[in-house]
């Protein structure tokens, strides 16, 4: 079996979710199979090595420079060229804004569409099977692509990440053309140091109970101690306490961290649908009747302004990996 993975890197480092996806592809492809990575721009030595370590035997690199490198429109053509050259059984990408855009473009260009936002991936003698949440997490759909190659985007943190290969893939260069009619003119960092929710392995989130934008300090402090991203419920975003970039839920981001700490969040259906992929859930809420306790692995009934700083202090004292 042959699998092509769209890899993302930033600042000379391969994204963890891309390494995770390549590793999963390598285990699905098996010893007889082959995994290739598609990369925007010429990968530097560190990224090539990381791609190889993760399990890519070959790298298709699209020769684009500058900010347009991130554009799905500019990269759809070289990706389709890589697909034509490698002839994979599946093309996989991460369910990130970049991955979703590029994969949607390329899969639609080939008249297929992609199984978006998958949380599980298996193969049987009839091909691939993907599981993906639908109806805001109210059901799980098992979908089977019926044409080759199968296209899918996969949520970060869906599979364990274990680099296991030697790190010297063969690199093939592809030309990328300027996108026709869509040009990325600039990038701006709206919130310095923000960790991405979708990629985060740990998240500390607050709800309406936080009471004000200024009070997010206690949440940011605990997040800092844990190396976690900061999340928020729709109520906290709608109150203007924090930007929509932080919203977890049906109208925000779907997340799948190993640890999700919900502070002052009641646990509406819509919020739960966004955080359902979390492996361990902690709820801290002063209302013992809050619905979130029914879905949490660990619950503390108490004022978050007492509990959260105490937890941050305890974690700093213990040290955290």
């Amino acid at each position: 079996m042959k699998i092509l993975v769209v890899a993302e890197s930033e600042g000379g480092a391969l994204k963890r979710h891309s390494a995770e996806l390549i590793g999963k592809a390598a285990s699905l492809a098996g010893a007889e199979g082959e995994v290739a990575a598609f990369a925007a721009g010429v990968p530097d030595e560190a990224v090539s090595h990381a791609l190889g370590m993760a399990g890519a035997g070959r790298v298709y690199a699209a020769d684009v420079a500058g900010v347009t490198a991130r554009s799905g429109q500019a990269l759809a053509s070289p990706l389709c060229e890589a697909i034509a050259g490698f002839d994979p059984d599946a093309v996989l990408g991460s369910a990130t804004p970049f991955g979703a855009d590029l994969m949607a473009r390329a899969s639609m260009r080939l008249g297929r569409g992609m199984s978006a936002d998958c949380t599980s991936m298996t193969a049987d003698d009839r091909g691939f099977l993907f599981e993906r949440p639908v109806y805001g997490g109210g059901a799980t759909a098992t979908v089977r692509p019926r044409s080759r190659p199968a296209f899918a985007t996969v949520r970060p943190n869906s599979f364990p990440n274990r680099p296991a290969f030697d790190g010297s893939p063969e690199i093939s260069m592809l030309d990328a053309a300027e996108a026709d009619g869509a040009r990325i003119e600039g990038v701006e960092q709206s919130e310095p140091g923000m960790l991405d929710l979708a990629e985060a392995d740990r998240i500390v989130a607050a709800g309406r109970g936080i009471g004000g934008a200024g009070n997010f300090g206690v949440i940011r402090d605990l997040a800092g101690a844990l190396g976690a991203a900061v999340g928020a419920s729709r109520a906290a975003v709608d109150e203007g306490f924090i930007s929509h970039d932080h919203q977890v839920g049906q109208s925000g981001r779907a997340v799948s961290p190993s640890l999700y700490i919900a502070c002052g969040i009641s646990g509406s259906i819509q919020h739960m649908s966004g955080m359902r992929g979390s492996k361990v859930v902690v709820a801290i809420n002063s209302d013992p009747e809050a619905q979130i306790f029914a879905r949490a692995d660990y619950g503390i009934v108490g004022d978050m302004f007492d509990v959260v700083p105490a937890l941050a202090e305890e974690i700093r004292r213990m040290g955290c990996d």
Partner: protein
Amino acid sequence: MKIGVLLKEVPDSESIIRIAADARSIETDRLQWTINPYDEIALEEALRLKEKLGGPSATASPEACRAGEVVVITAGPARAVDSMRKALAIGADRGILIRTEGLELDPATTASVLAGAARRESFDVIFAGKTAFDDGWGQVHIGVAEMLGIPCASPVERIEFDMRSKEALCARPASAGIKETVRLRLPAVIGCEKGLNQPRYASLPGIIKARSKPIAEFEASVLGGAPEISILTERLSPPPERRMGRMIGGTPREAARELARLLREEAKVI
């Protein structure tokens, strides 16, 4: 300026989802249906653009009328006409319903029939929600752009139109805290994200006026060229349920200490 809006009807997000006997679909008889919330944002953006350009007046010529027309397009069953009527009450001028009863659809086939209808209209710009609350494919509008051979930006949280140069400047999130600015040449498809605007409600006069606004119906097959589906839903299953976990008591300091211990020793996540 002819403005298209891709509109989908979805179960209300408060609805309880029950899987049907075929294990591949959901029971629809007791569901409340509504306009996909992201599509409401798309409709609002379309109406604001029309208003900015100066909508048609009673004395305007037919060309001028067309200059500010908002057309909603839906691929769905007959039932979806209710949501389209609501969109007309909010301010859209007319609707196109592509009937899809009995058809098995996936993102590419849906995009194909929507693109088929859009092609007949030659829109100057098409707005859509960035994804639908029910199936969450998040790619149908991108497919429509691809099939029409026009540019697309999605998910967009801020737009400025320059009507002289026929361009749209769109801001979209790229990754953590990073926003990209994309310059689109019109016609283009714009996938709308939350925060772009605050959708308005239908007014009473709007509801009355909507009754006389036209909704054209097409069979999906008439629009032609729909490829065979390439993604088959084999089954739906209820999501894994989380059970109630352990409550930790004591003073805040004691509870925090015990929680940290459990996260390290039992859950092994820190």
